[in-house]
């Protein structure tokens, strides 16, 4: 799959996980992994970008005597998910168009 397209979708996947409540790096990967393959090195830049675009906030909290970073979705993050779902209707139309052309050419 085109890597930019995949990353764009993974961003929304991460936001979706966060709609169930704040979470941390390892848990986000674990929550996604049954359905979506995401590596640690892929998640890091995604979190960073979502933070800089204001889709999530980060807070370090104590856990077992150490600090762990917790990520929380913002209103902008929720909007981002809605946008993606709206875009998807467009993508679906494009997909159908492309698929149809292929069938006719066979």
């Amino acid at each position, binding site marked *: 799959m085109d890597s930019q397209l995949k990353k764009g979708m993974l961003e929304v996947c991460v936001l979706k996980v966060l709609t169930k409540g704040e979470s941390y*790096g390892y848990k986000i990967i674990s929550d996604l992994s049954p359905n979506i393959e995401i590596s640690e090195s*892929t998640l890091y830049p995604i979190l*960073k*970008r979502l933070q800089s675009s204001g889709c999530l906030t980060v807070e370090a909290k104590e856990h077992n005597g150490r600090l762990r970073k917790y990520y929380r979705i913002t209103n902008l993050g929720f909007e981002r998910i809605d946008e993606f779902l709206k875009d998807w209707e467009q993508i679906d139309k494009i997909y159908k168009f492309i698929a149809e052309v292929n069938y006719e050419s066979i």
Partner: protein
Amino acid sequence: MNQYEYLKELRSYLSPLGRIEEDRVIEYYAELIVDKIESGIPEKEVLTQLGTPRQLADKILSETQEYEEPQNIKEPKELSVGRIVGFSILIPFVITALAILYSVAVSFVAASVGMQLGGVLTIIGSFFVMFVSFGAGICQFGVAIFVSALGLFAAYGSWKFILLCIKITQKIFKAYAKTYTKGA
């Protein structure tokens, strides 16, 4: 290799990211490793899953490169140690070069002062000569004026030359300051 050694080695490959980002990345992986170990995966297996520090660093650097705006990525500073050593070896030569430059400047100043002083004294002297031989006096007067004018030119030239010397010195000091503070 334990997690601390792993992270230390990983950090050593991340200098292209810059210090702040380097810290963030290490924080992220340190947290991840501990969380995995806490969840019951043995430390050794956690580190094996991540790949060697070099492999992980390559992944991190390439992800950063394709994911972020290019201006956020700093140029690698791999040559910094070589730069420090090279610059240090050059110190005696730099000092010698500066000494030559400044001695030239001093001789310029001395020449200009000499010419003007000599010129003025010769002008005064020429009036006395005029009493003896008017022609010789006028001739001496003319030469003296010429010499003092030359002295003025030399003064202007040496002033410009001194400014240039100061500029060069400043640049050299700045280059050294930059090398020793950033490279270290």
